């Protein structure tokens, strides 16, 4: 039987293994797995690593995560108030940037790895690397320069600054976010992360018009990727669609992995990528909460049949909501292993 890393490597090369790689992004489920509250759970990187390893064993999928919660990046930049919830992801409760003058005061840490908020993530990564490094891809989540301000000031205020605010403040903030992005990406690579999910809803034409994408988003994407290289980078726009920009991003940055939106047409995405990279077909995991066994199997089959022919395909989930019953997670994964098998 192949390991997750062998499956991923084979898929990226256009070769076959026993089946397509299957990524299942179980993040907040870790607290439930260990029977503790999210606040307790995320306080200790060893617990996050333990839960990731335990869930991977339990379900058999091909990846583990070093991500705690997205707001962690805001903590590294000064946020001190995170709101925890038993049934959902932790959220930034108090924004670092409340007024434009706070942009001047925003300080990017010289050494991220020395930051207390990063210490537990490093602990988690070290354990994951020791236990499954080389066998199962270790994923890290890095917010792009263009999107990071949304975590620091809220999406509403960021849209306001971006479209109707003073350009010099916007540019100053983006420059600081870029500096942070480069340090964060470097720190994750150094700590052993293999799969670096570059999260950027502003890289989608669901968020900005194509013209704006070309004039503003793309130059920042090029700058981000130019600074850190493409190794391990996954282009991801949250749940926003991005088939329309794939060709441009591929040509201009060389990024080789595209983690589509559940709303994207997988077959179309694969046609656009045209063998130049890995296409990741993503299931609508909000649907997984209520779907029947038959609905789940049909949806998994539909996605895999659209993306698997010709290889270079991965089946994945979004950030799975806690409300999905365990039985439905198993049904989805078993269907993915079955329909994604090269030995059927």
């Amino acid at each position, binding site marked *: 039987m192949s390991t997750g890393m062998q499956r991923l490597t084979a898929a990226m090369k256009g070769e076959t293994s026993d089946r397509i790689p299957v990524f299942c992004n179980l993040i907040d489920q870790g607290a439930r797995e260990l029977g503790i509250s999210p606040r307790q759970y995320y306080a200790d990187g060893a617990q996050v690593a333990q839960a990731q390893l335990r869930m991977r064993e339990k379900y058999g999928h091909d990846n583990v995560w070093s991500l705690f919660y997205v707001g962690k990046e805001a903590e590294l930049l000064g946020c001190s108030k995170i*709101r925890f*919830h038993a*049934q*959902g*992801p932790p*959220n*930034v*409760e108090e924004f670092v940037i409340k007024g434009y003058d706070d942009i001047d005061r925003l300080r990017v840490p010289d050494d991220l790895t020395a930051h207390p908020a990063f210490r537990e993530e490093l602990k988690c990564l070290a354990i994951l690397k020791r236990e499954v490094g080389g066998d199962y891809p270790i994923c890290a989540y890095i917010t792009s320069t263009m999107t990071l301000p949304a975590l620091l000031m*809220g*999406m*509403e205020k960021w*849209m*306001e600054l*971006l*479209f*109707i605010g003073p350009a010099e403040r916007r540019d100053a903030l983006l420059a600081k976010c870029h500096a942070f992005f480069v340090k964060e990406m470097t720190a994750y690579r150094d700590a052993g992360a293999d799969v670096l999910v570059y999260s950027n809803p502003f890289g*989608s*034409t*669901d*968020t*900005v*018009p*194509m*013209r*704006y994408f070309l004039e503003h988003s793309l130059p920042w994407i090029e700058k981000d990727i130019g600074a850190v290289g493409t190794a391990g980078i996954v282009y991801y726009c949250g*749940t926003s*669609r991005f088939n*329309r920009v794939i060709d441009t991003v591929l040509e201009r940055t060389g990024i080789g992995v595209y983690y589509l939106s*559940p709303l994207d047409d997988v077959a179309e995405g694969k046609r656009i990528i045209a063998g130049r990279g890995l296409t990741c077909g993503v299931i*609508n995991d*909000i*649907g997984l*909460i*209520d779907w029947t066994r038959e609905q789940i199997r049909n949806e998994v089959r539909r996605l895999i049949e659209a993306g698997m022919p010709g290889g270079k395909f991965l089946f994945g989930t979004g950030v799975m*909501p*806690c*409300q999905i019953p365990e039985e439905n997670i198993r049904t989805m994964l078993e269907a993915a292993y079955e329909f994604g098998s090269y030995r059927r």
Partner: protein
Amino acid sequence: MLESIIKAYNEAIFDTDRERALQVIHAALEQGVSPEDVVFKIVVPAIEQMVTSISENFDANLAQHFMTAQIAAEVTEEMLARFKSAPESVGRIIIGTAEGDLHSLGKRIVMGCLKAQMIEAVDLGVNVPAERFVDEAVARDAQVIGISAMMVHTARGEGGCRAVRRLLRERGLEKRIMIVVGGAPYRFDPELYRVVGADAWAENGIAAGRVIAGLIGEVRR
């Protein structure tokens, strides 16, 4: 003349160009277009046009929604001061994000559009308890409660829309006050609004105006 003004305004909105949109409006006023016509024949149809283009093509996006609402609110605010007589309110909505939810962008887009449509919106902010939604709706004689939720647990949780529905039922208010919901979880599960006890949902902030106007009409019928 109005046709070319509408076209220029719509193009500016689609390009997310606030300055150009405001220039078009001010030039229209100088050419003799009334403030009332600016709102009802240029700004409101532009919102409708955006709703139509969302349903017909892919190139309508969050930035355009934001700017459409932002500019609509700004222009309407300016024009209202110049109206010959105060316009009649279409109705009133209490709006906020569900308990535990801190995402405010969708609510802002909805409110910008409602302003131009002469629907009064009372903003309760973010992380609003169910009791407050209902108490404020009663106190302000609102026909609709609008609950925005961007996360699955705030959309489906016991403290959000489900609790508002329960309170409306317990207090015998279900015929007087209707509930509309919106946010990402509803886009990924179009039947979710029924599950949580809402009367309707809006796919995006721009489309919400039409849905809310419809609910107000139902209550007033």
